[in-house]
Structure formats: structure tokens, C-alpha cells
């Protein structure tokens, strides 16, 4: 409770600081709108539904692409960890492409898929996949071999060992890779949505982009706040339970 109150008072303080800066009129209101203007925009956008539609469009792209990236990335990562041929080929490729900001895929994605959902999904998958592959590979290679030996003496075999021993044993690495993949996917999707008009759906990035076009800074800041909130919520909802589980079981400090 005390931690919660600390957090709340911190953010209220930020809000107050913002209001004070606005009231001092250091910048034109066009450049720095009042907190009240931003909340007016947000409530209007929430009431006319445009905000919810955009959130839905963006989250759908993000979740579908992310889940595809995970489903593909974990097995590929396990395979690259186990087979040297794959490690020297796919593993190196993953290492290289993880370093490439996945927004760099946008021009190609547009040529291949047109201004469609496909292009957005592709960018999100490229953001997720490589991090997940690399984290899984590291995780699997760091599994203490004694676990596998112990499991094998208890009658565990190939697929059982893989899914019941190697996979859970590499979980600390995989979860941090999942988090990184999520962050990369989220960033690249926003970048793509801001710079490219996608005809099949109007996402949060577009909302932000049109705010700029219309010189409506309250809209730009409002959408930024939504994006930040979604990021925090995703962390608390998707990742915190996993991390808590890891802390509890492995005894790492939480």
C-alpha cells in the first residue's frame, strides 16, 4: 500500500509540475498544451470511440505478431542451441537481425504486402522473433546438464526431456527474451504506424501522426500517454506474473 501511495504521489507531482510549467507560459500553448486540454481530448476520443478502435487495431497487430514470433522463436531457439549447424547459420542470422531495428523492415514489408495488416504483422514478428530465438538459445545452453542427467535416469526421454526439463530450466532466460521481444515489437509497430498509412486499420500511431498534421499537440500527448499506459499495463499483466513465479521458485531477489 505504501509503495502504491508513493507511486501515485510521484505521478500526481509530475502532473502538477506540468500544470505549473503551462501556467508560467514559457512556451506557446500550441507547443505545450495544458493537462486539462489533453484530458479533454482523451475523453472526447474515448466517447466517440476513435481511441478504442485505434487501441484495438494496434493491440491486435501487436498481439498476433508477438504470439507468432513467440511460437516460432522458442522452438527455433531450442533447435539452434542443440544443433551446431543451426547455431552457426540461423543463430548468426538471428544475432545479426536482432541488431537491425525492425522498423528498417517497413519499406520491404510495404513492397511485399502493400499497405495492409500483413506488412504490420511482418514488422512486429521481425521485432519479436530474433530476441526470442537468441534468449531461448542462451537459456537452453545454460541449462545445467545435471538436470537432464537426473531426468533421464528417472525415465524421461527426448520430447519429455525437452518440454519438461530443458524448457522450464531455461525459463529465466526465455522470459527476459520475451520482454525484450515485446519492447522491440511495440517500438517498431509504433514507428511503422506513425510513418506509414495502413489502409486496413487506423492504429494508435496514426492517431498520433494525425495529431501532428493537425497541429493538435493535446492529441499527440494524449496518444503518447495511452501508449505509455499500455506499455506499463502489459508489463504488469503479462510479465509480472512470470517474473514473480521465477523469483519465488528460483529464489532470486524480487
Amino acid at each position, binding site marked *: 500500500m505504501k509503495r502504491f501511495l508513493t507511486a501515485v504521489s510521484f505521478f500526481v507531482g509530475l502532473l502538477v509540475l506540468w500544470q505549473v510549467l503551462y501556467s508560467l507560459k514559457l512556451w506557446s500553448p500550441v507547443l505545450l498544451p495544458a493537462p486539462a486540454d489533453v484530458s479533454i481530448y482523451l475523453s472526447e476520443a474515448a466517447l466517440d470511440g476513435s481511441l478504442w478502435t485505434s487501441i484495438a487495431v494496434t493491440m491486435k497487430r501487436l498481439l498476433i505478431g508477438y504470439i507468432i514470433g513467440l511460437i516460432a522463436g522458442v522452438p527455433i531457439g531450442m533447435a539452434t542451441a542443440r544443433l551446431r549447424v543451426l547455431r552457426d547459420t540461423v543463430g548468426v542470422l538471428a544475432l545479426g537481425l536482432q541488431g537491425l531495428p525492425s522498423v528498417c523492415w517497413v519499406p520491404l514489408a510495404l513492397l511485399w504486402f502493400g499497405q495492409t495488416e500483413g506488412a504490420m504483422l511482418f514488422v512486429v514478428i521481425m521485432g519479436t522473433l530474433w530476441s526470442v530465438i537468441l534468449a531461448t538459445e542462451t537459456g537452453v545452453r545454460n541449462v*545445467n546438464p*545435471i*538436470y537432464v*542427467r*537426473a*531426468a*533421464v*535416469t*528417472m*525415465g*524421461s526421454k527426448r520430447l*519429455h526431456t525437452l518440454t*519438461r*526439463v530443458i524448457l*522450464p*530450466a531455461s*525459463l529465466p532466460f526465455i522470459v527476459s527474451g520475451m520482454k525484450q521481444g515485446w519492447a522491440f515489437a511495440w517500438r517498431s509497430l509504433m514507428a511503422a504506424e506513425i510513418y506509414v498509412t495502413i489502409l486496413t486499420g487506423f492504429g494508435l500511431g496514426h492517431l498520433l501522426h494525425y495529431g501532428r498534421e493537425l497541429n493538435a499537440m493535446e492529441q499527440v500527448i494524449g496518444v503518447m500517454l495511452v501508449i505509455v499506459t499500455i506499455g506499463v499495463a502489459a508489463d504488469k499483466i503479462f510479465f509480472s506474473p512470470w517474473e514473480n513465479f521465477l523469483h*519465488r*521458485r*528460483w*529464489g532470486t531477489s524480487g
Partner: protein
Amino acid sequence: MTLQQELAPTAPAKLVVEDVSKTFRTGRRVVHALDRISLQVAEGEFVCLVGPSGCGKSTLLNIVAGLERPDSGRILADGAPVAGPGRDRMVMFQEHALFPWLDVMDNLMFGLKLKPGLKDSERREVAMYYLRLVGLERFKNANIHELSGGMKQRIALARALAPNPKVLLMDEPFAALDALTREQLYGDIQHIWQERKKTIVFVTHNVREAACLGDRVVLFSPNPGRVQEQFRVDLPRPRDINSAELASHSTKIMRALKGHLPATEETAE
């Protein structure tokens, strides 16, 4: 299979090591870990393998477990050649090897779930039986990291016993523990051995520990790994590691061990 049958002590197995050799190559170095070892372990016998580091005693244990293959020779468990790991031969390692992603109960259930012919409720009862046997039933829902070193090894012992193997293979299981905890476990393991009637092969480099636990102590010499000498220990049980009679046995073994050490100390495992 009923729960009573499952919990009844199994007939311990007879182990025969026939002419087993194993060579490791690390870079340019060739290590003859085992050189034509032959050994018999009777049903229900407690045999300790001792020797300096690198004498191949752990390698032999791994071969009996089926975790490694010999270059030549074979292992017979109750007359059947060992082709790989099997539930009839469970292993306890120096590291506890408990799975940190599972709690104590699920660690015991891991091997039991792989054993066919039991209902899940029966498996839980079996697991509880062994937790009680090692005196840690209160910790069934504990996480592994919450246990002390000695408790971890007790749970590892319970996990190894749970599938009711005929043979228990122990690879320096107490080496990482403090002296006091170790002495408690000497008592426990002797008690459990008598209660559960297992054939036990116990690897250690601690001569006194070997004399305390074993019916027989097999002394290995390194490079190439060979059986140097064997000692019977005919002391009544339970044995106290600090007793004078035990000391006289271990002194005898220690003298034989020292007589065979190379002039330059080699510590390669």
C-alpha cells in the same frame, strides 16, 4: 500394481561389471579412466568405491547408471545387459540436481509420473511416504532454494528412492555438506538402506565415509583406473563414523591408498 506392492521393498539387484574399459581424449591427452574393470556387487550389498581423483570411480558409476557407454565390456543388472538409463538404477549426484522450477512434492512426482501403472493419487501417497522416510514431509510445498544443503540432499535421496529402484547409485552425495549434516546423513542412509533393501554403489574420496557405510570398500588406483584392493568391513550397524573400530579399518584403507599415490599429485578429475 497396488500401492502396497509399490511401497514394498523391491528385491535388490545383483550387479556384474564385466571387463569394462573407458578412455577419454581431451585434446592431445588420453586418459585411461577405466582399464578392464571387473567387479561384482551382491543383492542388497552396500559397496563403496574410493580412490583419488581421476581414478575413474565416477565414470564407472555413470556407466552402471547407463549415462555413459563403456568402450568395451558390459554391465549386467540381474543378468540383463545395461543399455541405457533405467528406473531400476537411480542416481544421486554430488549436486542435488533438484529442479528449481518445481516444488519439493513435484520434484518427487517427476519420476513417479513417468512410472506407469499407478493412479496420480497413489503417486502422491508414494511421494509422501518417501518424504516421511527422510523426515521432511512438512516441506512438501517448499521451494528448493528455501531448503538447506542437507535438506536438499535428503529430498534428492527421496526422489531417487521414489520409483523404488533395485539399485541406488550415489556419486559423492555428501561431499558438499558440512561435517555435522554429513554425520546425520550417514545415519539416515544406513537406516534407509536397511529399511528399503537396496543394492547401493557409493562413490567417495573420503575413506572414513566409505568404511562407515560400506559392507565392502573397493579401492581404485588411477591412470589407468583399476581396482587396487578390496576391503570387507564387518562392523555392526548402525555405525558411528567416530568409533575407534571404524578408525582402524579406515587407517588400513588409507595406508593402501597412500601407497599407491603417484609422486606428483594429480588432481585432474
